[in-house]
Each structure stands twice: as structure tokens, then as C-alpha cells.
């Protein structure tokens, strides 16, 4: 317990905007990178702006490194420019009338000195005299990060930092950003809609849906035990909610799934890794107790993996090899049997 | 695409014709009625002319008088640019000569004289007694523009008494000078005796300033191309009659 890095950001943000209400508790530890994911409109950018102090809280508090920045109901709110929280914006938002080095030095008040250390790792040293409109999207993002880090903030917020980049650009940028962020030792909260970014960068992933936090866990746990349908879809798993009874789970549409658990009672969430779903062209015999007659809605190939979307008694996805698809001779519209071992069914108890 | 929203061609034509008709009626003017005359008069004669217009319209009920009152210079310019008038009364011979020389008027006659007066605003009336006081104090003076009879006279007068007019403001007509002095927006003004008489404010008047030695005469003429020669001459005749003479003296003018 003594080695626990100390708590850097401790906040509860409540914002009301018309019919939308954001109510989330977020914490970031020193030197920790937390990824904030969620569907569009979940309130991610609003959350960042509230932590920055740009939006007044309807309720809640913001504490940074033990210092109270804002508490709803009290007057002594610390303004944005005094919070020591930096933000890297979606499109960089570099000041167009200043060149790269002047952008980077903007918040420092002095010139150069500690700024030069940032240029190398971010690979922007040769861009210092250029103007933002002469840079590519990836270069702009790295300059924006340098600009924010130059002010040595305690917490760095990043809003879709890789949003404007293409796939290869992202992979490179991900690495650079990750390295640089860790090197500074500041805490970071990264908003991203791309799960690859989240899994690559983050120590912890926070899921925001409809203004509420639905899961907050390290990447492995998110990956293997998604708590909601959206998270499950994010990591590509099948997700169903149903009623547990003994070792069976009955879904709303009547389908029963046999599990290897016992004593189930009440609402449960069932998650199934697509790789655990096997496909047969004839009804299988043998040990799996879960098999369903479906037909193929679509097949997507990613490298050597074929993601087969099936519709039937319920909608389920199966991951098989490209070769398997060829062997089975299946295509859109084909009729198959999908089967699943009871031991492969993950169960999470749901409250209420 | 746009066809439904534009009114049809026929109704556009009707509208256009209506507009043209209305505009040309408007431009051709009210007042070129069969029995009305246009009188251009210098602004210093305002009250006199207004009184005599009343008299005229009482005597000749069938005829209207349309008055245009402005500084003599402005009136000359308007006539040079082709304005229509039947009777012209200006505040200086030289202005009238400009019109006579280009044949716009016939045989001007002098109908009045007016001499200069130096007036002081109500605020300072008690403190300023002589032109010497004006010379000494850093007072704000107002005069007419140099191109007007009053203004020309004012400059002549000022140089004769050594009065510095370099910071004086030039107003476009003498009534404007009077109003500024009455309202205390300037301290001193050089106007006509008639203006002093017409004022209802407690203005100061520098009687010993010798301004009354400078005076102008008022020529009146009927325009050469007037179509209402008889009516115009009827109006002109009023000035020589007792009613005209008494009106002139009542408002502070001198008889020619």
C-alpha cells in the first residue's frame, strides 16, 4: 500500500446540458495514463473541459495533487490558467500566426532552455521554423504535445490525439506519445475512440456511456470481462444479458445458454469470445451443449482471421481462420451450426 | 426553379409603369400649379418676406407663394444650376450682378438696406461693452461665410477695427450666426441689425463699435424666364407700398 503512487487527479464531474447529464468520478494517479473511451456523445470532451475548468460544475469537485481546484457551492474556483493542467486538442489547435518554436514556447514565458529536450523524442527538431499550415496532421499533433509538455503540467489531457492520423501514422505516434508521456512522469487522461490506442497506451481504461462511467479497469480486464454491450463490441466480444438459473442463462428472446458455472440466480451478463464459437455445416455431435442453427449475415476478413456475423435465435459473431471459411464453403446467406463449449461462457453478475 | 417565385412578366410591367408615373409626377413637382409663384429670398429677410407673403396671399387668394430661403450665395448657385424661380431677393448687389450678367434676371431694384451689428451672447452681455473687450478676451466669434454679403462685410469691418477673425467659425447664413450667439455656443457674432431686432433673447449689442457704418443693400428682381410675370410683379410691388415699408422698418431694416 505504501508503494502506491499517489493520487494526482481526484474528481467528480457533474454537468447538465439540456437533457444530457454527465456524472462521472475520475481518478488518475501520478505517472499513470488513463484512457477515456466511449461512444460519441457520451460526454468525453465535456468531461475534459470540466476538469480544465472551462465549464462550471453543476455538482462535484476537482482536486489535483491534493489542491482543491473547484468545489461546487464554494466560490474559490481556480481559473483554468492556474490549474497546471495541460490539454492537447483534437486537431492540435496550434496558433496559426506563430511558428512551431514560438508555439511550443508560448506557455513557458522564457525561451528555449528546457524546450529543446522535447524536440528530439517527438521528432520535430527540424520543424522549428515552420508554420502550422506547413505541417502534416501528425507533425501538428506532436508539436501540440510539445507545446503542452513545455509548461510541465501536472496532468495532461489529450482529446483524440491520434484522430487525424492514418493507420501507420497512428502506430508511430502512439509509440512516441506513450514514451514521451511516461518520460515526464505527469499523469495523463487520453480520450480516444480507437480501442487500439487505449490498449496500447493506457494503464487503466475508463468507459463513459451516456454520461456515466460503466467500467474502469486495466486493459486486460476490459478485454476479457467487458461489463457492457458497448465495451464488449469495442473489444469484439459477444455480449448478452439474461437471467441466471442454476447453470443456465436464459436470454430475453428465450435462448438458453449452458455455462460451466452453477448456482446462478438473477440478472447476469454473458460474454463470449468470438474465437470460442465453432462453426459446422451440419449439426454437431459431441460435448458442446450449446449449438444453434444460424445463417451467415456477413464475413469480414482481417489478415488471416474471418469475423463471421451470424443471425439466428440470437446474433452472435464467430472468429475462424480464412482457411476454415474456404473449407466450410460458407458465404453470406449460408446456413451453419454455431456451437460453443459451456466452459467458454464468461459470466458477470449484474446488480439490480 | 425560380419561375414560381417571380411575379409574372405582365404584372411586373404594370408595376414598373406605375412606379415611373408616380416618380415623374413627384419629380415634376408640386407647385408648378397654374397659380403659384416661387420666391427666392436671402435668409436675413426671412421675417419680412414671410409677412409679405401672408399679405400677398390675402390679396390674391388664387395665387400661392412658394418660398425658398437660404444664404445669398446658395440661392445664386441654385439659380445658376437651373432652379426655377419667379422673384429673387438677395442681400447684396454683387450677388445680384452675377445673375444679371448671365441674363437670369431683369432690372433689379433696391428695396432695403441693412447695416451690421456686433452682438454678444446673453451670458457675456454684461461683461463685454466694446470692441476693445472683444479684441482682448479670447472670445469665440461667429460670422457668415466670406462668400455671403454678411460675411464679406464682416471681414471688411473687422480689418478696419483690427479685430482678429482667424479663429472665427463661418456659418452658412446669418440666421445660423444669430442662433449660435443666442444659445451661447459662441460669444460674439457679426450679424445684421434686422437680426438683432428679430431676436427674443437678451443679447448684448456693441453700439459704439461702428459696425453700423457697414451696410448692404437688397436688390429684388423678377427672373427673365418667369412664366408668371404679372403675379411676380404684384409681389415685388408690395415692398414699395406702405405695408412693405412698415414691415421692413418693423424688422429693423432701413429703407433704400
Amino acid at each position, binding site marked *: 500500500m505504501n508503494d502506491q503512487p499517489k493520487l494526482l487527479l481526484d474528481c467528480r464531474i457533474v454537468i447538465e446540458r439540456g437533457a444530457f447529464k454527465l456524472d462521472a468520478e475520475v481518478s488518475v494517479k501520478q505517472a499513470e495514463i488513463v484512457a477515456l473511451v466511449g461512444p460519441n456523445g457520451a460526454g468525453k470532451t465535456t468531461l475534459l473541459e470540466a476538469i480544465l475548468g472551462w465549464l462550471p460544475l453543476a455538482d462535484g469537485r476537482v482536486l489535483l495533487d491534493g489542491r482543491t481546484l473547484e468545489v461546487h457551492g464554494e466560490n474559490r474556483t481556480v481559473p483554468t490558467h492556474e490549474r497546471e493542467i495541460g490539454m492537447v486538442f483534437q486537431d492540435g489547435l496550434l496558433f496559426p500566426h506563430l511558428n512551431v518554436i514560438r508555439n511550443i514556447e508560448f506557455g513557458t514565458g522564457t525561451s528555449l532552455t528546457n524546450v529543446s529536450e522535447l524536440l528530439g523524442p517527438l521528432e520535430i527538431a527540424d520543424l522549428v521554423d515552420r508554420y502550422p499550415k506547413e505541417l502534416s496532421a501528425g507533425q501538428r499533433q506532436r508539436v501540440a504535445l510539445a507545446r503542452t509538455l513545455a509548461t510541465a503540467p501536472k496532468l495532461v489531457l489529450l482529446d483524440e490525439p491520434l484522430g487525424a492520423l492514418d493507420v501507420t501514422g497512428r502506430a508511430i505516434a502512439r509509440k512516441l506519445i506513450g514514451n514521451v508521456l511516461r518520460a515526464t512522469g505527469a499523469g495523463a487522461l487520453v480520450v480516444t475512440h480507437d480501442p487500439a490506442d487505449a490498449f496500447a497506451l493506457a494503464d487503466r481504461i475508463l468507459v463513459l456511456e451516456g454520461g456515466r462511467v460503466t467500467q474502469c479497469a486495466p486493459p486486460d480486464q476490459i478485454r476479457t470481462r467487458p461489463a457492457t454491450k458497448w465495451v464488449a463490441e469495442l473489444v469484439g466480444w459477444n455480449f448478452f444479458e439474461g437471467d441466471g438459473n442454476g447453470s443456465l442463462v436464459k436470454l430475453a428472446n428465450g435462448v438458453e445458454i449452458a455455462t460451466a458455472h452453477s448456482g446462478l440466480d438473477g440478472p447476469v451478463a454473458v460474454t463470449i469470445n468470438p474465437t470460442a464459437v465453432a462453426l459446422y455445416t451440419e449439426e454437431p455431435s459431441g460435448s458442446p451443449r450449446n449449438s444453434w442453427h444460424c445463417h451467415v449475415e456477413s464475413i469480414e476478413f482481417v489478415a488471416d482471421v474471418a469475423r463471421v456475423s451470424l443471425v439466428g435465435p440470437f446474433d452472435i459473431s464467430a472468429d475462424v481462420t480464412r482457411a476454415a471459411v474456404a473449407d466450410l464453403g460458407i458465404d453470406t446467406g449460408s446456413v451453419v451450426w454455431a456451437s460453443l463449449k459451456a466452459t467458454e461462457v464468461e459470466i458477470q453478475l449484474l446488480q439490480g | 426553379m425560380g419561375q414560381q417565385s417571380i411575379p409574372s412578366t405582365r404584372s411586373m410591367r404594370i408595376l414598373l409603369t406605375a412606379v415611373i408615373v408616380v416618380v415623374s409626377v413627384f419629380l415634376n413637382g408640386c407647385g408648378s400649379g397654374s397659380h403659384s409663384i416661387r420666391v427666392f429670398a436671402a435668409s436675413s429677410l426671412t421675417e419680412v418676406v414671410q409677412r409679405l407673403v401672408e399679405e400677398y396671399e390675402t390679396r390674391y387668394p388664387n395665387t400661392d407663394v412658394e418660398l425658398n430661403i437660404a444664404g445669398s450665395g446658395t440661392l445664386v448657385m441654385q439659380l445658376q444650376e437651373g432652379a426655377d424661380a419667379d422673384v429673387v431677393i438677395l442681400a447684396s448687389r454683387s450677388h445680384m450682378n452675377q445673375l444679371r450678367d448671365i441674363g437670369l434676371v431683369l432690372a433689379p431694384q433696391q428695396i432695403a438696406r441693412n447695416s451690421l451689428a456686433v452682438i454678444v451672447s446673453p451670458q457675456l452681455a454684461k461683461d463685454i461693452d466694446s470692441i476693445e473687450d472683444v479684441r482682448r478676451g479670447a472670445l469665440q466669434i461667429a460670422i457668415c461665410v466670406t*462668400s455671403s454679403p454678411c460675411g464679406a462685410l464682416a471681414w471688411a469691418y473687422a480689418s478696419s477695427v483690427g479685430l482678429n477673425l482667424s479663429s472665427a467659425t463661418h456659418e452658412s447664413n446669418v440666421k445660423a450666426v444669430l442662433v449660435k450667439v443666442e444659445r451661447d455656443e459662441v460669444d460674439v457674432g457679426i450679424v445684421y441689425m434686422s437680426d438683432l431686432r428679430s431676436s427674443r433673447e437678451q443679447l448684448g449689442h456693441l453700439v459704439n463699435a461702428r459696425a453700423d457704418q457697414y451696410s448692404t443693400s437688397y436688390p429684388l428682381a423678377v427672373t427673365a424666364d418667369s412664366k408668371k410675370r404679372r403675379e411676380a410683379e404684384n409681389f415685388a410691388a408690395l415692398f414699395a407700398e406702405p405695408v412693405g415699408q412698415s414691415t421692413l422698418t418693423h424688422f429693423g431694416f432701413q429703407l433704400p
Partner: protein
Amino acid sequence: MTPQLPRLLRLAAFVAVAVVVAPLLSLLWRIPWSELPRLLSTEVVADALFLSLVTSLIAALLALLIGIPIAFQLSRMTGISASTLRAVATLPMVLPPVVGGAALLFAFGRRGLIGETLDNAAGLVLPYTPAGVVIANAFVATPFVVLTIESGLRALDPRYELAAASLGVTPLRATLRVVLPMIRSSIVAGAFLAWARALGEFGATITFAGNVPGRTQTLPLAVFVAMETDRDAALAMSLVLVFISLIVLVCLRDRWWPAK
């Protein structure tokens, strides 16, 4: 490909252009070109030109000083309060200039609401002085600054200020180092429009500042006076004014209402 204007509209546009251009062409046609050097070298013209240039430039600067804060305030407001403030700030532009001059007189004249106090306390009198000319000109020119700069500010992404704040820069310094440079073209456009307006101002000047040759007789006033006596001189000075106006327009080019 831009579609052709309907015939009627094209005809109307042609007539409209002719109506606007005809007076200018007539002016140019009547100018005594050979006499120009002589006419323009008189003391009256020199005084008026110098006074016009100096007072209009100072008035434009004053309009910027007054207009920029109003524009900033307006850009943060919405709804009725914004419309009200905007109407008040734009009033001098819509008001007949003579009425504007009269209003200034009632406020700052020797017997005006504020003017009387200024006179009694500091002996400061504004009418009939070049300062009065500057005030009258700045009064009518300020709305142009307010409108151009407000529209420039509203077109600016508000997140730039957030970015500056997130970098630890105070709001004041952010305004100076980020916002103002980024609305540079609006400021320039506003300044030029204000200058052009101040240069051409007549009604408010003659009503408030009077007509004192050498002190408050700007070029437009001199033209007015000269129209009665020396028509040629009036034309010559008119030409100078047209020329300066053209320069201002060329400098503005298409920066009228910045819609980046």
C-alpha cells in the same frame, strides 16, 4: 459554373451601376484639369487637406480604441442584451450626421451636459477646435470598427482561448498574444473603414466643431463653402477626396466583412 442572372435582374443591375457611376463621371468631366495645380496650391486647400488627414487618422485611432473593447464585450453576449448593445453602438452610423452633431453639441458643447463641467473645471472647450473635429469624426466612425471586429471575433474558434489558458497564460495576455493577432484582418478592415468615414464626415463636424478655416474646416467643409463662390476650387478639392477614397478602397480590397 455560376448560373446567369435573369435578364430583368441584369438590366436592373446595369441601370443601378449607371446611376451610381454617373455622378462620379460627371464630376470628373467638369473638373478643370489644366487648372488643378493652381487650384490645389492655395492656402485654403492646403489647410483643409492637412486638417482632414490629421484629424481623420487620429479619429480612426480613437474609433479603434473605443470600438475594440465594445466589440469584445458584444462577442461574449447573446440574445436581447447583445442586440441592444449592438443597436446602441451602431446608432452613430445610422443617425443622420447632423443629428449626431447636434447630440454631441448637447453633450459636449459649451453649455452641454458634460461640456459645461469641462469648461468650468478645466477651461476645456471642444467645439471650434480640431479636437472637436476628431470627436465628431470618431463618433460616426466607431460603429464601423465595432461591427467588423465583432464579426471577426465571432468567427474565431473559441477553443484557441482555451488552449492559451491551458498553457498557463492569463486571459489578458491570451487576448493580446492570440486573439488580437488572429483577428488582424478585421482590425485592419475596421481601421480603414473608420478612416474613410472620418475623412468624409460633414454634418456632425460642421454642427459640433463649426467651420473655422485652418482649425475645423476639413476638406468636405471647404468644398461646401467653395461651392458658392469658387466652383472650380470645389471641384478640385472634390477630386482630392475621391482620390483618397479610392486609395482606401483599394487597400481594403475584399476585406470588407471578414468571413473567414
